[in-house]
């Protein structure tokens, strides 16, 4: 694995803090009704992305696909965060020109393949991306992420079976944040260890302390190498936690404030910052400067999104089909 250095920690801190603040800003502008639709935030789960990015070959070779909690993954993979913010504003400068919204962020160029709104629907897609990479012998690996709720979908089982049968270069990640919307993992299955679902398919699998990016990177490195060698998929259960509700309309009656506070004690950003301070990688002044830079960068995103134009109405008809001049049925 690429060594975890001083620079790694500093970048992890900068990135994770930015992702956290980016999501906080979205929550704020959502309340102002500038961003509409559903809004699912990643707060608390950042170590998973940080750890994955450490072992990925970015620039389009390795790919990631996930569900609808998907704003910060493309940013981590190199997409301009201004364009992600603009997508949530429904503006033409957005990653999908305002066609996708919060749940459907895409950037093929950066290897981020969405952003999918149907729980579990992206699991076969992720295996299919890996199928294509294997078919064309690109050497790329797909990281296919989904939540603990999606682990109960049939699509997972059909996909696991074929991914193992055909030894596809894919790493399946369940981001187990404890709750499928408002239903706890305990209430969705007779078993608690989701990673054990891999055993039925003889897929290498295991649990990971996903509040810690180092643990994530280590587990992911092994899994990515397995895929690159041609030995097929791995299934990792990332044990994580989300601080905010499932979406913005979630009153969170299913858990206690104390539980949330307990997890904040092992917050991934705090864990990394503690190491930075302990190892004296940064001075207090430098840390303050990072915090200030992050705040400014988020403000720039907001400004860009605010000032960007909405798409032309004609755009509604421009992206459904590859065929030009498709004869849509008149609707009014």
């Amino acid at each position: 694995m690429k060594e975890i250095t001083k620079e790694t920690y500093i970048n992890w801190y900068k990135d994770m803090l930015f992702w956290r603040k980016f999501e906080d800003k979205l929550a704020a502008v959502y309340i102002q009704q500038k961003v509409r639709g559903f809004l699912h935030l990643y707060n608390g789960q950042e170590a998973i992305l940080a750890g994955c990015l450490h072992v990925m070959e970015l620039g389009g070779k390795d790919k990631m696909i996930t569900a609808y909690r998907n704003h910060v993954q493309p940013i981590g993979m190199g997409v301009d965060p201004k364009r992600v913010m603009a997508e949530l504003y429904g503006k033409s400068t957005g990653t999908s020109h305002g066609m996708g919204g919060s749940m459907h962020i895409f950037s093929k160029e950066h290897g981020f393949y969405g952003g999918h709104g149907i729980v579990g629907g992206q699991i076969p897609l992720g295996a299919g991306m890996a199928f294509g990479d294997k078919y064309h012998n690109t050497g790329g690996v797909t990281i296919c992420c989904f939540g603990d709720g999606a682990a109960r979908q049939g699509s997972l089982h059909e996909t696991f079976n074929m991914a193992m049968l055909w030894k596809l270069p894919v790493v399946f990640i369940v981001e187990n944040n404890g709750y499928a919307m408002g239903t706890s993992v305990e209430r969705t299955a007779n078993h608690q260890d989701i990673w054990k679902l891999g055993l039925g398919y003889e897929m290498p699998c295991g649990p990971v302390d996903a509040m810690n990016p180092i643990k994530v990177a280590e587990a992911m490195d092994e899994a990515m190498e397995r895929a690159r060698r041609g030995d097929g998929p791995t299934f990792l259960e990332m044990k994580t936690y989300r601080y905010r509700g499932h979406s913005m309309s979630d009153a969170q009656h299913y858990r206690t404030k104390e539980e949330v506070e307990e997890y904040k004690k092992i917050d991934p950003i705090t864990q990394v910052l503690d190491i930075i301070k302990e190892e004296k990688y940064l001075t207090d002044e430098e840390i303050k400067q990072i915090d200030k830079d992050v705040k400014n960068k988020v403000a720039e995103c907001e400004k860009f999104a605010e000032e960007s134009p909405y798409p032309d109405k004609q755009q509604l008809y421009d992206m459904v089909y590859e065929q030009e001049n498709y004869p849509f049925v008149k609707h009014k």
Partner: protein
Amino acid sequence: MKTIQFREAICEAMSEEMRMDESIYLIGEEVAEYNGAYKASKGMLDEFGEKRVIDAPIAELGFGGIAVGSTMTGNRPIVEYMTFNFALVGIDQIINNAAKIRQMSGGQFPCPIVFRGPTASAGQLGATHSQAFENWFANTPGLKVVVPSNPYDAKGLLKAAIRDNDPVIFMESEQMYGDKGEVPEGEYIIPLGVADIKRKGTDVTVVSFGKIIKEAYKAAEILEKEGISIEIIDLRTVRPMDTKAIIESVKKTNRLVILEEAWPFGSVATEIAYRVQEQAFDYLDAPIQRINTADTPAAYSPVLMEEWLPNAQDVIEAVKATLYVK
């Protein structure tokens, strides 16, 4: 010209396209070693190998989704469903992913894929194996829906569907795979979205598609003897629909019968009737007649199946109704 079976037309179309484009593969239940449940892929495993002709487990949701996902990394899959009745357990991948991903991604991910297999009834197969969902798929923006009715059309349309850069639902019939017809020796393509006049006529327009159109041919022969001339239009493609071809014919005959092997509620026939009243209202000399299957699930007993399924006599009666003759 040469005479081949419908299943051979399908096989030739797939094989010819696969020879020209390495990114195309065929996946489905029994398509490889078994040579296809209806032998539509006979010999293809031998020619293209197991990398490109792939036996899938019985998991329509899974292999359909994997095929859609592979379009995102450069493949152009052909997915065979043993019947579209079985596609229902995987329809999420067709409707929510294949049909949506291009628009949702702002045009970044076109989805060049063909989902093909038999549609509609095929003898006494009972309720779950006799359904036709052309209208379901045609209702979904992002998809194209093609339903050939003979070997010539099947080959030319399937080649066009495989080359198309949008997802295409290509619907065949268990009862047509053995049908024989002439096809050219050389390559040909039939463009999607263009209807075909299968029989010229002057008195009544009959619009149909798929295997049930054969009932209209039978009716035409009988009606001709009675001095009634019907024009039969084969839609070939349900979505996008060649409305112009229908309207032009109706303007000539002033009477329309629609024959469709599917349930009547919100059917393709309903859509055609809407368009014709909108665009040719003043040309109609009689109410539009439609013939569909009964508004019930199919039943097994031969007597009940006969009652359920449209036939030539139904067409004759509908044609005569538009002419106000008995």
